């Protein structure tokens, strides 16, 4: 399973007093199958950076990220990409649809990349309330609809781990509730779900909750539903 050991990320700054800074430092975390892990924290506290480190999208400056005991970043790019494609569903912050593909093609993108059998996207789109938009293009969608397309894409390929960055950011209360419930169900189906959010409501669905501050992660009390 996915596990981070003392990971840190350092960036160099071009200006300012210090010429480098750590958005994430010395974080250890294990994502447990069947559990929802929620990470909250203020903007700029390092939540997104940690999610990218866990997803194999950002090489750590220190520490290691393991997938079933294998150091993720020791893998060749092709193997790491394939592992991410098959095992990790990532929902990034902001717009993440490929503009030239329809909603359906976007959802089926991970399977199409490696010519796997196309997943049945319709139930996922329907459960997220965007079933009628399957043939629409991203330019025709609202911010909330685009978020749900990203969520459908991550879920439809049936990954073992779901890493979601502010998945309810653009959603109204009703859709926020709907999405959080879907993540909960995914966890109940055996997946490890990691949510990075400002939304304190998400804590109600969490098995484990953490708070990020100045790049450091600390556990906080969970409010499991």
């Amino acid at each position: 399973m996915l596990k981070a050991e003392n990971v840190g990320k350092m960036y160099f700054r071009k200006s300012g007093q210090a010429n480098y800074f750590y958005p994430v430092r010395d974080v250890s975390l294990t994502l447990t199958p069947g559990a929802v892990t929620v990470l909250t924290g203020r903007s700029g506290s390092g939540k997104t950076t940690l999610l990218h480190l866990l997803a194999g999208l950002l090489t750590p400056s220190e520490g290691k990220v393991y997938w079933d005991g294998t150091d993720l970043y020791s893998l060749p790019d092709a193997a790491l990409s394939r592992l991410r494609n098959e095992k990790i569903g990532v929902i990034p912050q902001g717009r993440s649809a490929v503009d030239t593909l329809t909603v359906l093609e976007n959802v089926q993108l991970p399977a199409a990349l490696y010519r796997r059998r196309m997943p049945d996207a319709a139930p996922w789109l329907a459960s997220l309330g965007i079933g009628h938009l399957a043939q629409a293009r991203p330019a025709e969608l609202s911010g909330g609809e685009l978020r749900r397309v990203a969520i459908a894409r991550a879920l439809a390929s049936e990954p073992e781990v779901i890493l979601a960055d502010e998945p309810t950011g653009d959603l109204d209360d009703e859709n926020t509730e709907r999405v959080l419930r879907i993540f909960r169900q995914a966890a109940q189906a055996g997946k490890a779900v990691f949510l990075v959010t400002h939304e304190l409501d998400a804590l109600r669905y969490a098995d484990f909750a953490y708070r990020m501050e100045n790049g450091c992660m600390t556990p906080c009390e969970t409010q499991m539903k």
Partner: protein
Amino acid sequence: MKSLPVKNLIRKPGRTAALMLLTAFLALAVFGGSLVVLSLRQGLNSLEARLGADIIVVPSEAQSKVSFQNMFLQGTTGAFYMDAENLKRVREIEGVEKAAPQIFLASLKADCCSVKIQVIGFDPQADFTVQPWIAQSYARELGEMDVVVGCKVEAGVGEILRIYDQRCKVVGRLAATGTGLDTAVYCNLDTIRLLLQAAEEKGVSHKVTSDSAADQVSAIYVKVKVGYDVGRVNTAIQGHTRKASAVRTRSMITDVSDSLAGISRTVTGLIGAVWVLAFLILLIAFAMIIRERRREFAVLRLAGMSRRMLSGLILRETALCSLLGGVLGVCAAALLAFPFATLIETALGLPYLTPDLRTVALLAAAAVAAAGIVGSLASAGAAWRLSRVDPGTILREGA
């Protein structure tokens, strides 16, 4: 996902059209420019082959008026005559293997003539320059009032051409040479003398040097024996003929060749400048487009696309777009170069003969391939740089 590059091109038509136009411009320059240079070279070779003689003897006035050269290069009509005695003198000179006379006559743009053309009469017994070409389209001997026409004369085989109210039967058409000879009509000496007489009757003065048409010629084509120096024979002819100039065909070709070399250099320079400029514009354009699409590419990476797959996607997309642009450019150049070949020939004032279809097809394929390669090269650097960046860094920038 093999169709993704195609979808990216089709579903972003504005971006695709802009890139295609750039590569089309490249292909247009290389195909159009090369076609013009090749056509000029082909025209020069054709002129050299068609002249077929080492020396041409013409009246001094023809040489000074430059009308002689213009007849071959631009197809302007003209007529000049000298004493046929010169033919006898030339044949007596040591080193002359063959000497064949030709008589010229210019028809009029008037009621008496179908078209304004150059009529060239030759002696079938002595000729060694015209007949090999005529034999390709008309194998029999030319009879009285039979003519063979150049490819640009608007008269088909079997039709009648009226020249000074004389009816001449077209028995053959010559293949294109790209020279002024394409607008000429060929007949034997008996026919041309009849036509000269008819012209005289119409009051057209041809400044004949003798009382009888049989005693005059316009040009004498000379073949020098193997082993003899053409320059020396030329000087000897110059000294033994009266009121005539001997011109080495090589020097005539050299003049044209020098003009062609100048044009070739200019065209090649222009092609090079267009390529450098277009390559730089493409480099900037692809760098900007790839930068604008960084987030889209980062999304593909987080969905599981490897660096190699991403570079492949970008290269396939740009290669496809550049190849399509190349095809567009070649078509545009062909639309300009082929219908306006005559205009180009007139503007340049040089022999111009379009290469055969196979050469044109090869040239077109090379231009399209070059456009595809240049487009791909221009995007390769940006694609490689992008694939080196962690997708997380890109997502962080654009979030």
